[in-house]
Every structure is written in C-alpha cells, then in structure tokens.
C-alpha cells in the first residue's frame, strides 16, 4: 500500500470514528440517569412546567428520533443553544466568547512546549550523560510528573507573592505592563488586528504584550507535561539515531558533523516526536479544564466543566462534538505529518518475534531432594509472617467487610463483624498498640507512649519499624527467588532471568521501584503509620477523647477529639497553624501538620495513598484484562472482529479523556454506584472503560505478530481449542507488553484522580484524597499553612516520578527495543 493510499484510508476511517464518538456522547447524556428538565428548572421544579419543557424540547419523542435529530443537527452544524448556564444563548455565541481564550492559551503552551522541550531534548541527546543532560532529563521527568492543577496553584501563589518575597524589587503584576495574576486575557486587539494596528501601533502592541503576559503562566503550566514528554522523547530519539548504523555509515562516507546532525540525526529523530506533538491536543484540551479553573481564564475547558456540573445537556453535546472534531482533526494531521516525514508509513515490515518457551518444572520433587535452602527460607518467612499474622487477618476481614458492603442487603454482615473483632484481638509486632504514640505529658513524663518517649519519637520509631519490616519481607521474597534459581530450577537460564538482570542493571528503574515500594508500604500500612487513626481523628472525632497537659490548669485535661480539632486547624495566621513536625495545643504530634479543619494531615495523606494506588492498580488491572482479552480475540480471528474493535477503540480514543471522565462522574453523581467507597468504585469502572482501548492499541501489534508464528499453527494442528491457544501460547507473550503499557499509565491515573477530586468530582469526603487536600489548602499556600497544598502535591509528583521510572525500567527490562510507551498516558491527560 502506498503512503498516500494509507493516508487516505486513515482519513476515511475518521468518519465513522466521529459518528461513533458522537453517538457515545448522546448515549452518555441521554441514557444516563441525568434529567435535563430538573437541571433546567432547578429548585423551581413543578410537574406542569416540567411537562411543558419536555414537549418543547422534544424529549417526549421516541429515543431513536431524538438520536437522529441530535446527530443531524450536529453534523449540519446547527449547534443549538444552552439550556441551563446561559439559557437561550446559542452555542455559537458562547463559543465565540470562550474559544479565543482557549486558543490563545493553547497556542502559547504549544509554543513553549515545542521551542523549549524539543531543543532541550535534542541538546541532551547530543550530549548524553553530561551534567547538563542529567539536569535536563531529570528536570523534564519531574516536571511532567507534577499535576497541572497543583503546579498552577503554586505558580499563582509564587507570582502573587514575588513582590513580598523580593521586598518590592520585582512584582509580577507591574512588570512591563500592569496585569492581574489570575485573569482572562483581554483579546480585544484580535478583532480586525490590522486596522487596529495601523490606527495605534503602540497601543496595539501593548495590548498584545498584555494578553501574552496574562496567559504566560497558564501556558507554562499547560505546556509543562508536553514539554517534559517532548524532551524525553527528543532525547531518546536523538540517542537512538546517533547510535544507529546508518549514522555510522554516513560518518564512514565522510559526512561532516553539522550535516550529520541536521540531515541524518534530527530528521530521523523527528519521527517519534510526531505523535507527541499531536498528542498535545489531548493534553491541552484536558488540561484546559484545570488550568482555566485555577487561572480564572474563562475558556472552553471552563465552559465545558460548568456545562457538565450544571447538567446543560445540549451544550455538553455540542462542546463534545467540537472536541471530537478537534481531536480527530489532530489525528489526521498526525497521519499527514507521518506520511510526509516517514517513508515507511503503510509498510508492514516483518518484525521478528523471539521464540522462547519455558519448561514446566515439578518443583515439589526438587525441593524434597534438597530441602535445606527451602527450609531456611520458609523458617525466616514464618517468623516474618508470624509477627504480623493479626494484621494480615485483619486485612482479610476488612476485605470481607468491603465485599459484604458491596452486596445489596449486606448479607452476613454480623458474622463478618465478629470475625473482624476476633482478628483485631491477635497481637502483632508493628501495630499501634505495641509502639503507641498517642500519649500525653502528665507534668513529669509521658504516659501511654512507647517506653515513655515523646509522641514524636514513638511515632518515628513505629514508622521506622514498619518500613524495616516491609523491606525485610521484600528481601526475603527476593532471597526466595534467588534460592529457587540456584537450587531448584532445572534450567540454568530462562529468558526471564535476562529480564530480571536487565532490570537490576537499570538504576533509574530501581530508583523508581524503591519509591513505588515506599508508597505501596504507605498504602498497605496506612492504619499503622498515622500518628492517629482514621476512626478517631477523621471519621468519628466526637466519639473519642484525648488527654493532654493543660498549661492553664497545670493538670491533665480531657477533651473530645472533635473539639480539639477545632482548636488545631491550620488556617494561615500564626496561632491558627499547626506546621509539619510540630505539636498542637492538645499535645498531639502532626508529622505533616494539620489540615484547615484541624485533622491530622499525615493520616489523611497515607490513606490518600491507599485510595490513589488502589484506584490506579485496579482500574489498570481491569482495563488490562479487557484489552488483553480483546487483543487475543482480534489477533486470533482477525477480520471483522478486529475492524469492529478498531472502530470502537478509535472512537473512545478520539474522545477527550478528561472531559469524558468529568461527564461520566457528573452523570452518575446521584446513583448508588457513586456511594460505593466514596466514589472509588465508580472511578475505577469509568477509568477501565476509558483506558482499555489504549491498552488494546498498544498490544495489538505484538498480538498480531505472535498469532502469525509457526508455533501457533502447530498448536492449532495439535487440535488445541482457540481459547487454549490464546491462553497458553499467545497471552504470555503479549502480557509483558501490556505490563509495559500499564506500568507507564499508572502515574497518569493517579494524577487524573487527584485532578478530578480537586474539581470536587472524584473521591468525596470522608475518604481522604490528595487532590481534595490540595483544594482544601489552596487559599493558604502563601500563608504559614502552606503545607496543606504543598505536601500532597509533592507526594503526587514523587509517586508519579517513581511510577514512571519504574515503568521505564520494566519496559527496558522486558524489551530493550520497545517503542516508548504512550507518553500522554503517563501524564494523566492533562490534569
């Protein structure tokens, strides 16, 4: 197939994608439980008015005719009008007002990303392993791990405070032209720019500069993720081309340094950058919701968000349609760029699949022959598990509780409760009771703390013991693997050894692994790690009491936790602030300080880690299973099954992820699913639905390749059933590719969840969530209570950096030649 034929096919493919994507939108807004009429009437709801509106809007028509009407209008660009947020205003008018700001914002963020990200990446690639490379690479990685909304908050604060910090030497507001930090850009100069310029060149230029300055901080934030991506990919692409044989050949031909760099290196390095550059459209659209919210730029993202939370269905539909057109257009642009830039487009080059199979080992027999190494290992394991048996059973009990909770009617709830009580009674080494920190000063010494130490020290010891234990367990597990490898495995070498060895040689990946482990331990041991418990401090503060040493009465007093919380909030001013690593007035130690409502921030943060990681892992797991299953089916049967899946997945991928997430969360806001685990279950489901196409896409190639291998035909000829072939012969090979993609996407999900919670749509109270904590402390960032927003944001950045590094390690270990995964996925669609 020639390049242009291929391009044409891609363009034609986009027509069904637009239709299908719009249909999905219709299904979401009309089939969901959202009632447009009550959204319009709001509090003035009465049945007659409702019926009236229903007839006027054609909502009494049968659904299919509504659907045809909806589609017909959109595709003929009759975009309708707003019902709720600006009743009677046509969508055209609204777009005319809001779109220019978003375009202006997008324009500058693309400029920043392109003209900073790519040159930096190329520079780093040309000078690998130099200090400047390390600074640029590491900076880029951390930069893109920061959630946009958090970065925006921090930047707003920094810019507003610059004057104070520099003692008036430099204030952002008065620099060059007077502007506010947070404002929609004034774009009046854009109407008939030429005439205006001719009339008053100075004034026009000033307006231009003002508008640019107004948008610059937001553009910097919005461009940040893409900038980081472009840098990374630019760097690896240049590195790869430099080391390629054709560059060597060119050198041997006598090509000079400069011509080598421009003709042979940069030109080729641009190819992997194409999807990153066009992928920016996704990041920009998704990110605009957040950035426009924080910077008060009333653009399209902001408009969509408001339309969504107010249930303004026709406006949602129209905006969604426009977003789909933009994204599909970008995809066509991407294909066009590819077609121009890469002559191999449309050419199915055969890539070889390594044919490695592993032998099954009857392990038990081998252990029986040489039991000693296994026994030592098992004994150590028994000790490690034994000291924590109670805790392990508690987790089992807790899971049983959750499961029972999920089943309507809660059957067997009492049995589970008694079971939980029994498990709670088993003592464990690193539980709160063994190393207690919630004691008080009685005038002469601490009571009820570990060894009479101060609460801070006791808490620190407990944290240290927990981590020591966790790392001991991991060391034990690793040791087990090594023992197995040395003593019990029949073969000296399997392909998996290479994967493990490659990972062990990957310092960046190991760095990521350590961070990931740190957070996983935090999530697993959340109840033990906090200086206080969820129950006492956050959920039921008025059911518990706390004793403390009162300076006034010089005696030990008792107060309800809830009341103590009222006196320990962090709300900016000096005496209304409990900073990290300090005690509050009630002798309670707060490692990360307190939140605005006086509740312990550390406790919330560790439980936040629990929910974030759970959502990310479970959602990716489900999406991965769907993607894997579909990949097997489409690769095995090909033809129609493949085509249909391509269509569906392309359509889902053409939807702006963040917008769909917002929309779905709004739609299901008042349903029972939303109640489960404070929204986590719903979020997991939504993420699985939205993410499986990405996974399927990334493993479709390997699945197709493996399905063409001879051993598949051999398996078929032995009379194995299709499911057997898929499960035994295809899935294991494809699975590792799925693992690469999934591990690179986890960070993105964590950022997205935090972003949605920041908007008030994600995880709701009382379950703590990082994004909500950031929102909680947003207005105090410039005050002494800066820790509330800062700490969760830093933790997100850290864990996402860790996850991405870990993902890189896994990718390089599993397949050193693998394409760099989907970069957009690693940045949470712009949140």
């Amino acid at each position, binding site marked *: 197939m020639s390049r242009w034929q291929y391009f044409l096919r891609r363009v034609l493919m986009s027509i069904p994608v637009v239709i299908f994507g719009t249909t999905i939108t219709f299904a979401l807004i009309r089939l969901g439980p959202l009632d447009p009429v009550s959204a319009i009437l709001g509090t003035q709801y009465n049945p007659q008015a409702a019926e009236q509106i229903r007839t006027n809007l054609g909502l009494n028509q049968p659904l299919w005719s509504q659907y045809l009407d909806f589609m017909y209008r959109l595709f003929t660009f009759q975009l309708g009008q707003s019902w709720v947020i600006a009743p009677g205003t046509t969508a055209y008018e609204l777009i005319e007002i809001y779109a220019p700001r978003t375009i202006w914002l997008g324009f500058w963020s693309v400029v920043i990303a392109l003209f900073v990200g790519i040159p930096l990446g190329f520079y780093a690639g040309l000078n690998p392993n130099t200090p400047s490379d390390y600074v640029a690479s590491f900076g880029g990685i951390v930069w893109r791990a920061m959630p946009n909304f958090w970065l925006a908050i921090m930047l707003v604060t920094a810019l507003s405070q610059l004057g104070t910090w520099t003692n008036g030497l430099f204030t952002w507001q008065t620099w060059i032209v007077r502007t506010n930090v947070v404002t929609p850009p004034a774009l009046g100069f854009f109407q008939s720019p030429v005439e205006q310029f001719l009339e008053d060149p100075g004034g026009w230029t000033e307006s231009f500069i003002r508008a640019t300055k107004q948008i610059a901080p937001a553009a910097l934030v919005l461009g940040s993720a893409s900038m980081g991506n472009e840098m990374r990919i630019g760097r690896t692409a240049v590195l790869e081309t430099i080391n390629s*044989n*054709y560059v*060597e*050949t060119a050198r*041997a*031909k006598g090509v*000079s340094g400069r011509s080598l760099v421009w003709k042979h290196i940069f030109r080729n390095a641009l190819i992997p950058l194409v999807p990153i550059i066009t992928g920016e459209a996704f990041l920009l659209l998704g990110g605009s919701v957040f950035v426009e919210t924080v910077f008060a730029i009333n653009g399209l993202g902001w408009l969509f968000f408001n339309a969504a939370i107010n249930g303004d269905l026709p406006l949602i539909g129209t905006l969604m349609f426009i977003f789909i057109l933009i994204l599909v257009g970008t995809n066509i642009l991407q294909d066009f760029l590819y077609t121009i830039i890469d*002559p*191999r487009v449309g*050419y199915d080059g055969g890539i070889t699949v390594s044919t490695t199979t592993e032998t099954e080992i009857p392990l038990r027999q081998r252990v029986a022959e040489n039991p000693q190494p296994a026994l030592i290992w098992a004994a150590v394991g028994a000790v490690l598990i034994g000291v924590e048996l109670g805790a392990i059973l508690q987790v089992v009990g807790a899971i049983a509780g959750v499961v029972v909770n999920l089943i309507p009617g809660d059957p067997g709830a009492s049995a589970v409760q008694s079971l939980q009580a029994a498990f709670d009674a088993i003592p464990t080494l690193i539980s709160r009771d063994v190393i207690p920190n919630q004691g008080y000063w009685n005038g002469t010494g601490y009571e009820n703390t570990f060894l009479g130490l101060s609460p801070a020290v006791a808490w620190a010891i407990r944290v240290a013991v927990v981590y020591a234990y966790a790392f001991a367990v991991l060391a034990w597990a690793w040791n087990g693997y090594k023992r197995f490898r040395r003593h019990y495995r029949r073969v000296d070498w399997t392909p998996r050894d290479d994967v493990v060895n490659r990972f062990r040689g990957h310092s960046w990946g190991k760095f990521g692994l350590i961070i990931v482990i740190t957070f996983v331990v935090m999530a697993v041991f959340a109840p033990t790690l906090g200086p206080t418990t969820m129950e006492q401090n956050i959920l039921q503060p008025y059911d518990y009491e706390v004793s403390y040493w009162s300076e006034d009465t010089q005696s030990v007093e008792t107060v309800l936790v809830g009341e103590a919380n009222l006196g320990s909030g962090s709300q900016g001013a000096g005496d209304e602030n409990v900073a990290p690593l300090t005690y509050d007035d009630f002798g309670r130690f707060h490692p990360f300080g307190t939140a605005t409502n006086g509740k312990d921030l550390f406790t919330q943060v560790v439980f936040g880690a629990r929910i974030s990681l759970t959502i990310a892992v479970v959602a990716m797991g489900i999406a991965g299973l769907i993607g894997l299953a579909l990949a097997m089916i489409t690769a095995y049967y090909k033809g129609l099954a493949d085509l249909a899946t391509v269509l569906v997945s392309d359509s889902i991928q053409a939807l702006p992820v963040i917008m769909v997430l917002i929309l779905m969360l709004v739609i299901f806001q008042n349903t029972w699913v939303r109640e489960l685990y404070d929204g986590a279950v719903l979020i997991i489901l939504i993420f699985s639905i939205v993410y499986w196409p990405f996974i399927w896409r990334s493993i479709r190639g390997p699945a197709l390749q493996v399905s063409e291998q001879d051993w598949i035909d051999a398996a078929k000829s032995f009379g194995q059933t299709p499911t057997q072939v898929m499960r035994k012969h295809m899935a294991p090979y494809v699975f590792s590719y799925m693992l690469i993609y999934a591990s690179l996407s986890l960070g993105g999900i964590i950022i997205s969840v935090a972003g949605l919670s920041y908007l008030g749509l994600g995880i709701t109270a009382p379950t703590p969530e990082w994004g909500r904590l950031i929102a909680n402390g947003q207005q105090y960032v410039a005050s002494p209570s800066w820790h509330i927003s800062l700490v969760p944001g830093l933790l997100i950045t850290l864990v996402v950096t860790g996850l991405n590094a870990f993902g890189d390690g896994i990718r390089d270990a599993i397949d050193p030649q693998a394409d760099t995964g989907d970069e957009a996925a690693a940045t949470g669609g712009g949140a």
Partner: protein
Amino acid sequence: MSTEQASSARTEGEPLLSIENLRTSFYTDKEVIRAVDGISFDIFRGETVGIVGESGSGKSVTARSIMRLVEKPGRIENGRIMYDGEDLLDKSPKQMRSIRGGSIAMVFQDPLTSLNPVYTVGNQIKEALRLHRGLSGSKATKEAIELLEAVGIPDAHRRVREYPHQFSGGMRQRAVIAMALACDPELLICDEPTTALDVTIQAQILELLEELQEERDLGIMFITHDMGVIAEIADRVNVMYAGEIVESAPVVELFESPKHPYTQGLLNSIPGQGLDEDERLATIEGDVPTPNEDPTYCRFAPRCPKAFAECDTVHPVPVDVGDSADDHRASCLLYPEDLPSEEAVAVHREGGQRGGDTR
C-alpha cells in the same frame, strides 16, 4: 582475484595500507580495555586481507581505528596507520572526512540498518557523490544509477528513487556497496558484510566484491568470523585473538598448515576438517579474555592445549614460523619451529623488550 596475481602485487612496491603497532583502548568506568593491542599488517592494491577471530577479539575496532571512527571512551593510543605514505593518525578531522568515503570506504555488517530509512537510496548515494566528487543534480542521479547497475541491481532507474525499506536485504547490501564505491575508493573495508544475509545471497555478494576488485584494483580488508567465507575470498589471513594478531599467512598456507594453536582450534571447529578424534577441539572451550593490561604472557594460554610453563611469563611476538614457509608468522612460543624450545622462547623474550611506544 587469483592468488598468483595477489602475491605478485605483494612483492612489488609499497603497500596501500600499512598498520604498525596499532593500539586502541577503551577507558570504561571499570577498566581500560585494550581492544586492539599492538597489531601490524599490510594491505596491497588488488589484495584481499581477511581478519578472522571470535566475537570480541577486536576486529571491528581495528576497522574503526583505520577510519578514525573510534568514539568515546575509546582512544587510539599508539601506532601508525600509513596510507599512501602518510600517517592517517596525523590527519585533521577535515582531511580525514575527505579520506573517508573518498579513498577508504567501509561496508558495515547489517545492511538492513545501514541505510537511513527516511531518504531514498539514490539520495544517499548522491550525498557521497556530492561530498567527494562535487557532483549534483541529474549528473549525480545518472552516476547513482550507474553505480546501482554496477552492483547488479536490476531496474536501477526506478530503484534509485525508492526507499531502503522497499529493498530486500541482499539488495540493500548491494546498495550499501554501491554507496561505498561511489567515490572510487582504493581501499574497501568490509566488516562482516555478509553475516546478516542468507547463504545464497552471501555467495552473490562475495562474487560481486571479487568482480569489483578485479575491475577497480581495490584493496579489501574483509572482516568475518566465518572461516568458510575467508577461504573463499581472502588472499591473506590475519587471525586475531584478544586484541592481537596471533597468526598471519597466505590463505592456502594457513588452511594447509595452521601453526598457532588458536588457529588450529578454529579450523578444527569447522565441520568437515577431519582430524583425529582425540586431537579434535569441537569448539574451543572458554571465552576470549578481555585484554585489560600490558601483556606479559600469552593471552591464549588459559585455553591452549599446548601451553607450557613459559607461556604464563613470556609474551609471544610475531615471528616467522620456520624457514620453509614464506611470509607466515605466528605469535606463539612454539615458534620458530626450527629452533629448540629454549632458544625460541628467548627470541620472544627479546622481541617483547624491544618493542616500544611510538606515540
């Protein structure tokens, strides 16, 4: 090229390329690897010199050193590379660029990746023509087509406008050779040019190289680890082991009476070279050691079936294996054959002391 023709070239006049005591080292974090450690050999016009040796013995580094394409952390530390009476190591980067591709051309191992995928084959040949012969436009295109025809690519008019991925593996290697020949080089360095190809295509490429050599009186340095290929194409063979040339002889001589125990092992490991069952080394056991220090012993000693005490204390230098053989040298304490063992060892001991660094 016939062997007589080549050996006659050998006796008359200057060599085209003469390498003297070349040492190239890599300064890695852990150690200094002497990938090429004090090798010397000549290549004459119209002659094909084969370099054989196991993986990691330093063949590619030798080739790269000649092209001055050794990259960080590698460094050419010692020796001379005399080409046309001038030392390439004294050339400026600019002079070197015009030599690369102009007088000395190189063909790499993997034809599938040696061509830049985003430019047409013609474009890449024309790049060389422009650089070295100042040709451009339709003239260059015409020349490129002729070159493609010369290396046996059918329908060259059309092919010249095609991209590398539209070529088969064998055709790509032909295109790479055409590119190397674009500027009429005098010396062609081939680093395992046929390893990535299947056997029939391999034979075709070898044939092509022989034809081209005859037409253009090329000197060819041919790197491979395939003894069969060497037997077919080379006039003279240098056997490399751990950065050193351990034996050097005309091809027939080498195959008929290999002298160095390593060469003997290599030849025995080819199936069909029947030797007595107990004398046979199915493969040579062990790996090539990494040469990371000044040699004061025989680097092959740990694997050598004939090793004796002195092998661990004396570094063998290249010596004529005996009076009878013509131009046949080996670096092994067993030689010269006609001397008693002690005297032979003494020759090596002295030879080792005399050699000094030139740079």
